[in-house]
């Protein structure tokens, strides 16, 4: 974020803050759903925005703004869960009925060499790689079908940039399990984008 914009945000500029809400609100909802459930996520994120607005003057800009907001939202979700004495919805055990296999497992020979190597991807910019109209629909379906524990780690680590330490604290999951779940989630996404870049369909 540019220094001027950051200064304006820190001074509590409501227009810039509304832009922040527009850009990050959906990601924060996705981040908190696995902790408090879909019915409470909206309330939790609303409280997180209030806290963020009150604390924006102290945002140093050392981490990405999404990571800073993500940490506030996670703390808010944990607090709500404690207050309501709810069990954590997250489980680091794979559900036998869900797909827990590495998304790229079928792409290798028995000896572990590429049988179907990755295609060349034409889209360069991070902003547009996952947002093409058709791909965005497929991505939504993939995320909806993804086991909750994999999606949860993907949202926390890759979408919000939280550290493994924060993730392990929030979810009481071991770092090694978190890494396995993240790997599975990423390979599913890789497979989807690779197929789309190769064929134009998904």
């Amino acid at each position, binding site marked *: 974020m540019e220094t001027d914009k950051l200064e304006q945000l820190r001074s509590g500029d*409501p227009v810039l*803050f*509304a832009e922040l*809400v*527009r*850009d990050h*609100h*959906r*990601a924060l909802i*996705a981040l908190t759903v696995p902790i408090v459930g879909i019915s409470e996520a909206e309330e939790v994120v*609303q409280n997180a*925005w*209030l806290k963020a*607005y009150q604390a924006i003057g102290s945002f140093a800009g050392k981490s*990405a703004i*999404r990571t800073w907001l993500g940490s506030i939202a996670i703390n808010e979700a944990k607090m709500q869960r404690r207050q309501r004495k709810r069990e954590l919805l997250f489980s680091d055990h794979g559900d036998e009925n869900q797909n827990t296999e*590495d998304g*790229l497992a079928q792409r*290798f020979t028995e*000896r*572990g*060499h*590429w049988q179907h*190597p*990755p295609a*060349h*991807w034409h889209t*360069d910019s*991070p*902003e547009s*790689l*996952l*947002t093409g109209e058709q791909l*965005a629909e497929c*991505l939504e379906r993939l995320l909806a079908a993804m086991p909750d524990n994999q999606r949860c780690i*993907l949202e926390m680590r*890759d*979408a*919000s*940039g939280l550290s493994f330490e924060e993730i392990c604290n929030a979810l009481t999951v071991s770092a090694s399990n978190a*890494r396995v779940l*993240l*790997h599975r989630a*990423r*390979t599913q*996404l*890789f497979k989807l*984008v*690779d197929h789309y870049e190769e064929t134009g369909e998904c």
Partner: protein
Amino acid sequence: MLSCRELVNHADRLLEDDLSFSARIAIKFHLLLCRHCRRYVKQLRRLVAAIPFMHNKATDEEVHKIMDCIHSHRNL
């Protein structure tokens, strides 16, 4: 030598620069010889950079709801 399958399993840690010296050497050596894995790592890096942008922007209604809530707390 490391197989491509094993390299893919280690690629997440490679991106985070979280590998032992010997594992890093084994991966670098494999990448030197294998263009498919070079492409995999390059594109995985690109994918991870794109994930923060995968969520849609909030609607006007959602933004107004949050901003109204903030304004009402400021006026308390």
